């Protein structure tokens, strides 16, 4: 029992963190929340303070996934992003990361 538990733990650890494989095509049905801000060139947030929303296309999928996971967990502070990320599944995050991660690579 102890050995199989240890083995199971080892298997889990050797998987990449949040092992979902992202599908960029699937993200197209999931990014309506994203495009309202990140899809408009030079768009500024009005809340909670005014600044240009970051360009996200072209970041690595890993970085985008990490950002969304941090917002979902409450570890990163933007209230709008927290509200949106709360509704995302691990698969949604992987798909959106694949979509925007590929977007800027030219």
């Amino acid at each position, binding site marked *: 029992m102890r050995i199989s538990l240890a083995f199971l733990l080892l298997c889990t650890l050797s998987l990449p963190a949040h092992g979902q494989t992202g599908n960029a095509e699937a993200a197209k049905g999931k990014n309506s929340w994203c495009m309202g801000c990140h899809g408009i060139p030079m768009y500024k947030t009005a809340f909670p303070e005014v600044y240009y929303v970051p360009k*996200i296309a*072209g970041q*690595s999928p890993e*970085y985008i996934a990490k950002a969304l996971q941090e917002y979902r967990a409450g570890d990163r502070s933007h209230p709008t992003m927290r509200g949106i990320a709360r509704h995302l599944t691990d698969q949604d995050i992987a798909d959106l990361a694949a979509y925007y991660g590929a977007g*800027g690579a030219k």
Partner: protein
Amino acid sequence: MNKLLALTLAACMASPAFAGGDAAAGKQKSQACAACHGADGNTPAGPDFPRIAGQHEDYLLKALKDYKSGARKNAIMGGQVSALSAQDMADLAAFFASQRGSLAVIR
């Protein structure tokens, strides 16, 4: 366009708290950043590190300020910004925003 420029200028002058960033000074202070983000900010050392070249200057500055205040938590960045002044952060944001990068806006 001229109107936008005038408005921007007016906004800058109307907010004395904002220390305007100097890209050339930022370049001088950017060695520590280069280790992870790349010297140009567009060639990160690994997929966990974001591209910062060509990112909006005010967003970069906000990120640095948030790391400094603890509003945004990252073990590496929290340590890096602890020694930076408000002027250092403004200069670094100006430098990396002025670099050519492959970030883009897509829908």
